[in-house]
């Protein structure tokens, strides 16, 4: 085996008085895809940031080609060819796609920027990634998965010797994931060392050569991927055997609670109708960009729309979130950082933001808020080293759990959850699935939007599939299969409806 390019020896990391990593040993080899897995908050992102020079280790050593190094910031690591794609986007929102790709390394012709060349190269990189986004588009106007593709394009545009990717596929659909994997395989062939993390263990099994498991800041095992099964990985991550991922479906026919008729959002959703019954878990499938999120936001009063939405027989006005929330309908956004949480505020302030009137008027009762936070922390197993920390310092998965807690705080009758388990570890995933099932048995109704097929199939008794802004079809019970969903999502046999009932 080749010598490692980049390695950690006994690395520890503390934030303030709290130690997060307890002596991590770890080596990356050229031409090897190494997966780092672990529960939310286990320290994966922290480990990666230390490798890429974004954080200094508190103790231990980082070695580059066998020699100890102490990076003075990520720039120095980048000069050596260590490139990292972060879990959260690092894009300048108002700049265009190509400006982002070349940010800090702009191409020049003489004294002037060479806009044409940058645009052409960006187009070529995006082409390699089969991403159809316009390089001149400002980043704040492109979709979440496209942003991720831009991040990947940005990383590919640098001459990487070590490529570190923190949950690159969390926001990608399967098709885009395939495209990314093709690029990873190409880079592996070129001798690039690749470190990668994902909560999708199937992917890890497929793409990684070696897998290292981190639990609570300690390395628990490191094996060749060929030698471990997905179940082994999951058990090593959570420290116990995991039972079935999906709970039993219990839905029995009941009266409709939510009826959306002829919803149109100009340019993105056309004449979409759906009905949700009491106690039902309804899935919405479809490719990213098919209008799922926009439909959900229109129903939840977050976008201007035409068409009617009736909740328990009562009409909900368009573009009025507060009214929808009061009536008992809430939407959990897929864009955690942009629309879900205030990253610079504490857990408590985030949790109660949408429901402050329930915590006392005119003065907010701090004690009640703290109690609510206690409940949320235990109900959703939120791991926060410090209760007063800024939400932006929580690990990604724990942010997601807090967002769930925040959304459910209003005790809604109807919950629309967009990508419920994005970036969540397998143990917690199981808990969130159980929670969704429990909400349904309590008589609440849930719409789950997901790009993960197993999630739709495992949770929903009925799935509506969208294609290009329209409802392409509906699948019920036995007909809810991966093949059927994909066919509808791709716009094939759009006339099929209720193939089994």
């Amino acid at each position, binding site marked *: 085996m080749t010598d490692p390019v980049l390695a950690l020896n006994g690395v520890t990391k503390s934030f303030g*008085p709290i130690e997060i990593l307890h002596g991590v040993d770890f080596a990356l080899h050229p031409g090897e895809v190494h997966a780092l897995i672990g529960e939310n908050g286990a320290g994966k992102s922290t480990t990666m940031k230390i490798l890429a020079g974004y954080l200094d280790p508190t103790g231990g050593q980082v070695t580059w080609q066998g020699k100890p190094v102490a990076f003075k910031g990520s720039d120095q690591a980048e000069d050596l060819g260590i490139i990292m794609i972060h879990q959260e986007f690092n894009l300048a929102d108002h700049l265009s796609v190509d400006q982002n790709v070349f940010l800090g390394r702009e191409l020049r012709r003489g004294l002037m920027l060479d806009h044409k060349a940058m645009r052409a190269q960006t187009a070529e990189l995006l082409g390699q990634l089969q991403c159809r986004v316009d390089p001149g588009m400002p980043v704040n106007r492109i979709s979440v998965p496209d942003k991720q593709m831009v991040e990947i394009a940005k990383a590919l545009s640098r001459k990487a010797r070590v490529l570190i990717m923190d949950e690159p596929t969390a926001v990608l659909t399967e098709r885009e994931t395939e495209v990314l994997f093709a690029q990873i395989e190409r880079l592996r062939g070129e001798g690039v060392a690749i470190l990668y993390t994902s909560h999708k263990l199937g992917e890890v099994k497929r793409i990684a050569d070696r897998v290292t498991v981190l639990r609570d800041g300690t390395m628990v095992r490191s094996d060749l991927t060929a030698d471990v099964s997905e179940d082994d990985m999951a058990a090593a991550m959570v420290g116990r055997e995991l039972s079935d991922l999906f709970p039993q479906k219990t839905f029995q026919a009941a009266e409709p609670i939510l009826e959306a008729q002829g919803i149109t959002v100009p340019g993105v959703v056309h004449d979409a109708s759906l009905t949700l019954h009491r106690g039902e878990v309804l899935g919405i499938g479809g490719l990213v960009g098919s209008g799922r999120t926009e439909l959900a936001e229109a129903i939840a009063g*977050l976008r201007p729309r035409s068409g009617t939405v009736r909740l328990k027989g009562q009409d909900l006005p368009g573009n009025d*979130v*507060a009214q*929808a*929330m009061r009536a008992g309908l809430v*939407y959990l*956004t897929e864009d955690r950082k*942009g*629309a*879900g*949480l*205030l*990253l*610079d*505020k*504490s857990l408590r*302030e985030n949790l109660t*933001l*949408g429901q*402050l*009137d329930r915590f006392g*008027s*005119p*003065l*907010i009762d*701090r004690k009640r808020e703290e109690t609510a936070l206690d409940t949320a*922390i*235990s*109900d*959703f*197993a*939120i*791991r*926060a*080293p*410090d*209760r*007063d*920390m*800024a939400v*932006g*310092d929580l690990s990604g998965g724990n942010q997601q759990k807090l967002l769930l807690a*925040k959304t459910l705080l209003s005790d809604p009758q109807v919950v629309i959850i967009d990508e419920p388990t994005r970036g969540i570890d397998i143990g917690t995933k199981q*808990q969130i699935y*159980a*929670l969704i099932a429990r909400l349904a048995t309590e008589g609440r109704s849930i719409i789950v939007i997901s790009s993960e097929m197993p999630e739709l199939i495992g949770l929903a008794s009925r799935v509506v599939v969208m294609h290009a802004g329209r409802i392409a079809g509906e699948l019920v019970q036995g007909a809810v299969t991966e093949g059927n969903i994909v066919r509808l999502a791709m716009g094939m046999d759009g006339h099929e409806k209720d193939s089994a009932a």
Partner: protein
Amino acid sequence: MSMATTAPTRRPRVNLAMIAPVVALVVLVLIGMALNPNFLSYANITNVLARSAFIGIIAIGMTFVITAGGLDLSVGSMAAFVAGLMILVMNLLTDSMGGGLPVILLGVALALFAGLAAGFVNGILITRAGIEAFILTLGTMGIYRSLVTWLADGGTLSLGYEMRELYRPVYYGGILGISWPIIVFAVLAILGEITMRHTAFGRHCAAIGSNERVARYSSVAVLRVRLMTYVLLGTLVGIAVVMYVPRLGSASATTGLLWELEAIAAVIIGGTLLKGGFGRVWGTVVGVLILSLIGNLLNLTDFVSPYLNGAIQGVVIILAVVLQRNTGAAR
């Protein structure tokens, strides 16, 4: 659900940016005491406080506007315009009603209403017409300034002698030896601090300034809260004018000149983030005191020319912003 949970503990946090304004204030007071024994005299202190009350009252409102991610450059001219309008109307009323307390009460009501209305106009144009706050209030700043000049016909509007005598105690009088402007400033500051920290309105302001989209998705009435911050500021400008007019009994084109800058500076020195998302009223009060103490110290001593007042205040403002940038993050 049952699951392993870490039990997070709370630990106190001392943040440099958090206490820096207080430290600066204490240092200023110590310097003042060392340089001039009269500095801590009752007369000097009440004088400083009473003079800073106008800017202070306005700065309280500005704290909310800036916390919610807005800005208002028009408050100085707005104050001049409201003062001019108030004097003009009071003089007219004196002619028709023959003066007395009712005229003063009507004048006060008018000033409060005019301030509220002016704030409403700013707010509605910013929130509904979607005009950038900086540009819009730059515009209204010019408009109000020009209106007061026009009202005064280029000169000075003065309150009639009789009215002036009757109204005087509102600035010069007080209880227990504390003058009214100081009392009003103190009460408003306390109310402001409570509003910012303990009410939904204050929380919503910070949320909007921190990330407007998150606030909207959390069903916060973003436009209404924003509008309310400008209305609140306008009303406080009205209150400041009510306290200010009895002091000189006149208004002119130079009334309230640069008040907007002093108010914004006080807010920023106090630790409120200029880009919004975090604000504290008590910090603003400290900021106001720092700015007026600098001026006062320069007047009391002859080390540095009082003409350099602006320069020193400028340095303090720049330092405050640098400090903010280097500490930042969560509170």
